[in-house]
């Protein structure tokens, strides 16, 4: 009895059934992401009013903020997937962990890059050692560590387990790192460059930002599933179903 109740769980855990189940609806997720991103981008970049202090340069927040949101959420996504893999020995969740690591690192880079581009017109410099920027940079290093460790082993399973454990250790550390960087920053730079607090934002800017965040979430899910599908095929390339799929039924 108990066996059949958990059958869906075990089925989901196999890369093959994941691949087959997602084939049908993943394009729709793509359309949803594209739709939200187009609406949000047009609204944010063209329709939303200019900022009183920063002029048009503030508009980069429509990319910067969602990317930063997901960069952080992505780390937890990666660590949770890794933990599930370690506990239940699910192949698929290690695949999810690896995909989340790659995408998370890319998004962290995007948020650092857009932050630098935004910093030039607002602060007059591309880089300042502000608390949020520094924490983001360290998050980027953490991602790079997980990625490097995952690829360092000859056997893929060893890399999976090792990087999952590292991701978990990182999860324990992230709040401590954030708090300490925050404290360090308050020591060295008495909050002179604080700005854009979300609640004081006007609705005409806030709504497109929310749409962009939703769009980024949908986009993240889409890319994650796409990446996981590609990885499923790669890890199972010697199995019959993968050969059938790749060579076209």
């Amino acid at each position: 009895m108990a066996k059949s109740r958990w059958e869906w769980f075990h089925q989901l855990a196999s890369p093959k059934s994941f691949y087959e189940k997602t084939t049908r609806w993943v394009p729709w997720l793509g359309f949803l992401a594209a739709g939200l991103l187009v609406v949000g981008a047009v609204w944010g970049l063209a329709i939303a009013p200019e900022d009183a202090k920063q002029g048009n340069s503030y508009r980069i927040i429509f990319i910067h903020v969602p990317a930063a949101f997901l960069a952080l959420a992505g780390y937890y996504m990666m660590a949770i997937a890794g933990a599930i893999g370690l506990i239940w020995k699910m192949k698929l969740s290690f695949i999810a962990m690896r995909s989340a690591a790659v995408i998370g690192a890319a998004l962290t880079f995007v948020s650092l890059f857009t932050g630098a581009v935004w910093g030039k017109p607002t602060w007059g410099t591309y880089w300042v050692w502000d608390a949020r920027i520094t924490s983001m940079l360290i998050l980027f290093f953490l991602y790079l560590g997980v990625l490097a460790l995952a690829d360092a082993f000859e056997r893929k399973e060893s890399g999976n387990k090792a990087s999952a454990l590292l991701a978990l250790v990182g999860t324990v550390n992230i709040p401590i790192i954030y708090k300490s960087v925050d404290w360090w920053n308050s020591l060295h730079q008495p909050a002179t460059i604080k700005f854009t607090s979300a609640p004081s934002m006007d609705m005409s800017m806030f709504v497109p930002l929310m749409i962009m965040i939703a769009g980024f979430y949908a986009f993240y899910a889409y890319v994650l599933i796409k990446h996981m599908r590609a990885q499923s095929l790669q890890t199972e390339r010697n199995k019959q179903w993968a050969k059938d799929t790749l060579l076209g039924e």
Partner: protein
Amino acid sequence: MRLSMLAKRDFTLYWRNKSDVSNALIFFVVAVSFFPLGVSPEASVLGPISIGLIWIVALLSVQLGLDSLFRDDYEDGSLEQLALSETPLALIVLVRLLVYWCCVGLPLSLFSPLLGLMLSMPAEAYSTLILSITLGTLYLTAVGAVGAALTVSLKRGGMLLSLIVMPLYTPILIFGSSSVSFAADGLDADGLLLVVFGLTVLSVSLAPLAISASLRMSLENG
């Protein structure tokens, strides 16, 4: 296996092979003395940066020795025997960490005032420097050993080890060097030293669990 025997064995190994300890100390001195050459020999330039500089080089000195922490035992198979013994592996690991810290971390902290003198560090900060490096090296040993355990089955783990653990050193570097800077400015550093102490206690109590899990994983891989 009794833990005291284990500690004795590890101490004997360090005693017979003193280069592990002396190399870390020599690196510490050599790397620090490069800064006057690369930056400036002026006391007015070196003095203000001396604290952070000594802290960072001490961090690297601890880090460099960690690669060999479990390697010999892994390669000759004794790690497997330790993992099979009825004593919890986390306790065995804890003993190993404490021995490493006594042999590498403590000498580093005792050496640090000498280097502070050479870099014209403010005199008020010496006692805080010794205390914060003593505690900090224990944190660095515990956290770094997680990376050492994860990479022990790799042939060349050294660079990778630094890459994966260095981001985790951020909190101790911040609070460790800030406590010394506070003391140098004549401020009360006790609160910050307590934070350093807290971080160290946290890492020493949690890291052995992660390390023993990583070591078991590495043994499966090998």
